[in-house]
């Protein structure tokens, strides 16, 4: 089909589109994965913090200095 042959320039046109798509999708996937990883890490850190004595004090369960 003449569309895929791109008037003889297929070897230049299609790699251009392919590499553009690859890089853009790749950027998106890396960014999403980084975001999910960081959300998970933050949740774990917040949970660990809340379960310590410091966390209990923050929640106003005991002691002075907790202005929650």
């Amino acid at each position, binding site marked *: 089909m003449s569309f895929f042959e*791109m*008037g003889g320039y297929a070897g*230049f046109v299609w790699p251009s589109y392919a590499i553009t798509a690859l890089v853009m999708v790749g950027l998106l996937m890396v960014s999403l994965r980084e975001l999910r990883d960081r959300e998970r890490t933050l949740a774990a850190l917040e949970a660990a913090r809340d379960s310590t004595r410091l966390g209990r004090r923050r929640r106003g369960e005991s002691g002075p200095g907790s202005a929650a």
Partner: protein
Amino acid sequence: MVLPGRLGTMGRSWLDKEGAAPIMRPYKSSWTMHRFANPARFSRLSRALLPWCAAGTLVTLALGLYFGLFVAPADYQQGESVRIMYVHVPAAWMALFIYSGIALASAIALIWRHPLADLAAKASSPVGAAFTFLALMTGSLWGKPMWGTWWVWDARLTSVLVLFFLYLGHMALLNAFDDPLRGRRAAAILALVGFVNVPIIKFSVDWWNTLHQPASVFRLGGPTIDPSMLWPLLLMGLGFTLFYVSLLLLRIRSELLAARIRVLQIEAAGGSAADAMATPFGAAPHA
């Protein structure tokens, strides 16, 4: 006030103003007056805007690709190879646009110490580098059949290559220091110093004898490109821009989380509140 989801306590610690430890005050005046310096507020904005930006990206790219590949005619000189223009030119536009954005964000970060500006610059850098790479690569693939060469050291190509190195330098500086704030400051200075390259790139085809063709869209006297080709090109440009905005919303949110993680890790390792507040994203008021 507690936000739903995993950002619940993060939102709470930023919004609590009563009981803020006195040591927080030196940072308060410089950034709490900026509305979206509040990370929880930015996250809400990001979540609200993202679906629209993502949908807009998909629609404009789909339309641009359809019109560019199927409807627009071949060029009378370049034949079907002109279709590379619909990815090459938007990528080059993004390379320049993003660098300009980084320079602006860097100026705001240095002058007003706005932490979101810092993070916007950091989040944008790899995206700009990727688009610069794409501009160079697709340009090469277009140059080989049209000019007979993959590369030539003319003013336009050389200055875009320099732009690519500036992006890489920016990214390297961001990660070169133990204290992320110093890295962001150094990178901001590089971004501003390198900004002179942007007008050089833009006017290179006028100031020097270049193999690269002169401007055919953004020029005095209006575009010289046929509307049947201009509209797909503009659609692709808009699509790439919306893609960048969507990505930026995600990446800034990610940087905010990373800053918060760093604070908690320092705290957990036994650092004092003062240690944790070495960055603008200080510890929770209760230390």
